């Protein structure tokens, strides 16, 4: 057998394993180079770039409204938030007012998208730890959300719904009723999920105390969203730097509390996401009850020429802060667009925390950090 075993001295030998680019648990095309000693890892080095599509370069040759559909492709699980982040940047650059109904619709669509994205994440975590059924159940619920969003805006994954100045399509009362019907159904499913898998002792034991990320590390490496909150940092852009309609809404921000182990372990990252499902349902219910009549898009011309300047705008996506940095030179094409995505920083911490983990733990770490390859590579 010609296995590569690196000699590192008398007592130290390590096995170099190549995990990916085509591996069932790497969530897209990405690669890890594992330096292991049997099952225990010395180091796991992520190698990304297999899904690099040059979205930032493309921006330099498209118009502002023409770039919005490209933002769908930043992350295929949360297209709504990428739309919103970019639209928000241009709105603040060129002072466009967004009508209130559009803001409510953005919140509803965004939270639906968040539920859909978390469904995939939670499902993938359980699937990577061996339980396949919860993944299929959650995918089934996501399918209904996709149907709802398709009825709203015509596409299931690449929505192109949030536009500069508002949203593209109005929602009728029937659609809102259907969303409410779905929420009634989905809240029961969350309960069922708790019984089916969340507190399953095997799952808890697999994730508790594994790969603890301290609050300092989380902030230093720039973790955002659920990953940051799981480490005990109480921060949510929707609440702390409010935008859109969120200041008017009442919701809680789940924080990792070390429920089964240490604060910031895999289980915290997992359970924070499960809790967020319920909060999203709460937000959508409030929006449906309070949504006013009115326009859905502000006064925007087809040709948008923001004044010279630059802006960094961010929204709280399903993977946390999804930011976009836009430099305008006064023409109708952006001078520079830069995406700041949650998965990118989450990926950068893996090498730091991987020492001493087992191969099976690494799978849990990748899954709970919710790393999505297209978002890291853009």
């Amino acid at each position, binding site marked *: 057998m010609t296995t590569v075993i690196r000699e590192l001295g008398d007592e130290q030998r390590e096995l170099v394993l190549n995990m990916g680019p085509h591996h069932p648990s790497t969530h897209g095309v990405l690669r890890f180079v594992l330096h292991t000693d049997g099952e225990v890892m010395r180091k796991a080095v992520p190698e990304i770039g297999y899904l690099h599509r040059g979205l930032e370069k493309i921006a330099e040759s498209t118009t502002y409204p023409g770039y919005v559909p490209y933002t769908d492709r930043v992350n295929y699980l949360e297209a709504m938030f990428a739309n919103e982040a970019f639209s928000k940047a241009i709105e603040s650059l060129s002072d466009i007012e967004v009508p209130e109904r559009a803001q409510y619709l953005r919140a509803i669509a965004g939270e639906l998208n968040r539920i859909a994205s978390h469904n995939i994440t939670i499902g993938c975590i359980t699937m990577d730890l061996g339980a396949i059924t919860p993944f299929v159940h959650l995918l089934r619920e996501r*399918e209904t959300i996709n149907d709802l969003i*398709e009825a709203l805006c015509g596409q299931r994954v690449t929505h192109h719904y949030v536009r500069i100045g508002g949203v593209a399509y109005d929602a009728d009362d029937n659609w809102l009723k259907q969303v409410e019907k779905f929420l009634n159904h989905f809240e029961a499913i969350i309960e069922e999920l708790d019984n089916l898998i969340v507190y399953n002792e095997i799952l808890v034991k697999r994730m508790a105390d594994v790969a603890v990320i301290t609050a300092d590390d989380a902030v230093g490496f720039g973790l955002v969203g659920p990953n940051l909150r799981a480490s005990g940092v109480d921060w949510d852009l929707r609440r702390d730097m409010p935008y859109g309609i969120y200041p008017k809404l009442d919701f809680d921000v789940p924080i990792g509390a070390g429920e089964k182990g240490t604060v910031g372990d895999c289980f915290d990252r997992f359970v924070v996401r499960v809790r967020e499902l319920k909060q999203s349902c709460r937000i959508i219910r409030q929006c449906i009850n309070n949504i006013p009549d009115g326009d859905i898009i502000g006064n925007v011309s087809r040709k948008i020429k923001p004044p010279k300047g630059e802006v960094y705008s961010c929204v709280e996506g399903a993977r946390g802060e999804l930011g976009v940095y836009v430099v305008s030179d006064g023409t109708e094409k952006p001078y520079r667009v830069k995406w700041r995505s949650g998965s990118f920083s989450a990926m950068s911490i893996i090498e730091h925390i991987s020492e001493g983990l087992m191969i099976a733990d690494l799978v849990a770490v990748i899954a709970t950090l919710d790393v999505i390859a297209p978002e890291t590579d853009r």
Partner: protein
Amino acid sequence: MGQLAEYFNAIGRTILTCSDGLAVTFSHLFRKPITIQYPDRTAKPLTEMLPERSRGILEMDQELCTGCSLCSKQCPINCITIDVQKNAETKERILNKFVIDIGKCMFCGLCVEACKFSAIRHSKEFEGTVSDVNRLKINFVEQPAPVAKPKKGEDPVLKPVGSIIRKYLADQWAPAANKSSDTNSGGKSE
């Protein structure tokens, strides 16, 4: 003592949580599956179950197109090519070519929103498999003809959604396969 208690607690927790999980999955045996048996056991073609706003493959009605090329200017990826020529004698503008490269199209709908004459729109068709990517360039102009001149205040006469593209799909995408399967099944049913 505490350790011993924890030892048995762990056993108890494992049995309880696992058996409750088993109860959930067992209850699923009595629920209805949600599978849609696409493509061959649905009551009607899936395209007709899609919602109103569904954005499928683009289609263009030659009788409504004025050749203004607003759509191709809006397109972020330039997948629409329009060729309009002026006839020197009659001064009429002739629409020679209207090609949409569906292999490039990202179904954003900007061209549809730009069209003032309802000539270009999304159909609900989505099945576009071909063996050669270049066959995805569809020319919607069968015969070069003068462009449409809609009168003001008159509503355009719209064809049923999908009727135009379906013709191209059936003709262009799998002529051989289609014909043989048609004759086969026709022969058997008669």
